[in-house]
């Protein structure tokens, strides 16, 4: 009974992370996107902490702490500051309408379930459901990167993808801490790099719209 409850709660938190992924696709304003991302990271921290409690794996508390401090606080705050500094907080740019993006998102969730079910035929229902959830979060992050033109939202999409990876990592038993630290720090490094890039892009092209770079590169005539 208690076991079932702990599984159910883990899945519920996982679903919250997934819902935040859909929230990211739904939001159009940059600040709203950042707030939603912060919420997703918060849910991820809760998921990691709950797994740490259930699996009696104290090192997962550390993962939860990393998610809480870096992803839910420092990264969104930094991006917030960046957006304000660049004065692009009113930009609304989507390559695809929100409705279509959401429909594709649901299709991706269905796809990840269809993929996970045959692969994990022998695994327990617990692993199967959380793997399906995590994979959906990863795919939604990719979709976010594809459907947004703005560099900031693309970075958020990339970090949402990382959230999905960490969700998969904490759900599977016995993942060593080293990997998680490296993942977390790679995100931090990526953010710093992206920050520098933003300024560079802006200096060169006076905009964060990546379409300009594409024409510059010669992709579009």
């Amino acid at each position, binding site marked *: 009974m208690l076991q079932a409850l702990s599984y159910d709660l883990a899945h519920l938190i996982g679903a919250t992370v997934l819902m935040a992924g859909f929230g990211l696709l739904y939001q159009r304003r940059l600040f709203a996107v950042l707030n939603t991302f912060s919420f997703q990271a918060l849910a991820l921290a809760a998921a990691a902490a709950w797994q740490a409690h259930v699996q009696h794996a104290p090192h997962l508390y550390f993962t939860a702490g990393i998610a809480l401090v870096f992803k839910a606080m420092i990264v969104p705050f930094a991006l917030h500051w960046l957006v304000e500094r660049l004065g692009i907080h009113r930009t609304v740019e989507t390559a695809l309408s929100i409705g279509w993006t*959401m*429909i594709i998102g649901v299709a991706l969730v269905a796809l990840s379930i269809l993929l996970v079910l045959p692969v994990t035929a022998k695994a327990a229902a617990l692993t199967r459901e959380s793997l399906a959830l995590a994979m959906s979060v990863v795919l939604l992050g990719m979709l976010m990167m594809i459907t947004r033109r703005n560099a900031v939202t693309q970075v958020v999409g990339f970090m949402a993808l990382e959230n999905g990876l960490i969700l998969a990592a904490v759900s599977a038993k016995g993942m060593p801490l080293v990997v998680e630290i490296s993942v977390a720090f790679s995100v931090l490094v990526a953010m710093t790099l992206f920050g520098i890039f933003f300024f560079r892009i802006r200096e060169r092209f006076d905009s964060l719209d990546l379409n300009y770079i594409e024409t510059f590169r010669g992709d579009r005539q």
Partner: protein
Amino acid sequence: MTAILWQLVQVVLALATAPLVTGYVRFVKARLNGRRGPSVLQPYRDLYRLVQKEAVVAHSASWIFHAAPYVVFASAWLAACLIPTFTTNIFLAPAADLIALVALLAVGRFWLALAGMDVGTAFGGIGASREMLIASLAEPAMLMVTFSLSLVSGTTQPAQIIAFVLGGNVGIEVSLGLALAAMVMVAIAENGRIPIDNPSTHLELTMVHEAMVLEYSGRHLAMIEAAAMVKLTLYMALIACLFAPWGMAQPGADFPAIAIGMASFMLKLFVLASGLALFETAIAKMRVFRYADFLGGALLLGLLATIFLYVSEAV
């Protein structure tokens, strides 16, 4: 025998609590806005005043305009009587079916839209067309929620769903959480609450419900206002009974159990109404062109709820 008695109690309860819930929501919103706000009992007084007044009807109005308020009110009231609130032991419980409930609400909506167009004013027409836009998206979402609930419990009757949930057969399911989110979004849209429609406006081009009932006055308006209040309470009762049925009395329960059921129902209404007031204060109204995104989101959540059911079912 007791079933008939409790049904009668519920018939009265559905009508008597509805203005109170609306008044409470308005009161909390006023307080959150920093105003004193009217008394919680104000909607009762408003309805009483409207009933006393003469109904002024436009020259161009047909019989549809006269009949619509009664049909709208009757369908909302009947729907509110079908949903178990404090006990599942009510006379109409076997007739209550989620799909029938959706249809019943659609009848009321259909007549309201007809009445909006009947007089031939521009506002009525624009309100009716928007109402239908919202309905065409909210209804499938509501049906998706119904499907996922009935896939879990094997029935579409609220009384049996409650018995199934209270029997401890359902854990915390991901799909139920998704269905709850979809249901809340549908309820907000169907009742014309803030991100979709502002219930307290009469002077905006974005109004939906108020635009349709702009021509009504006197007892007709009282009927329509009462129907809207009953509908709001109905959706709260529906969310409470489907997703948080705890405390509800089962068939064969004695009087203390009924009292507990009644108290828990009032508590649930209190929590939901407070939550609604808080949400409406915190959020801004949405552009008309974004309705499709919002309600499409509800539909997709309902769809996801059904999809995830298959993941956890396929053990």
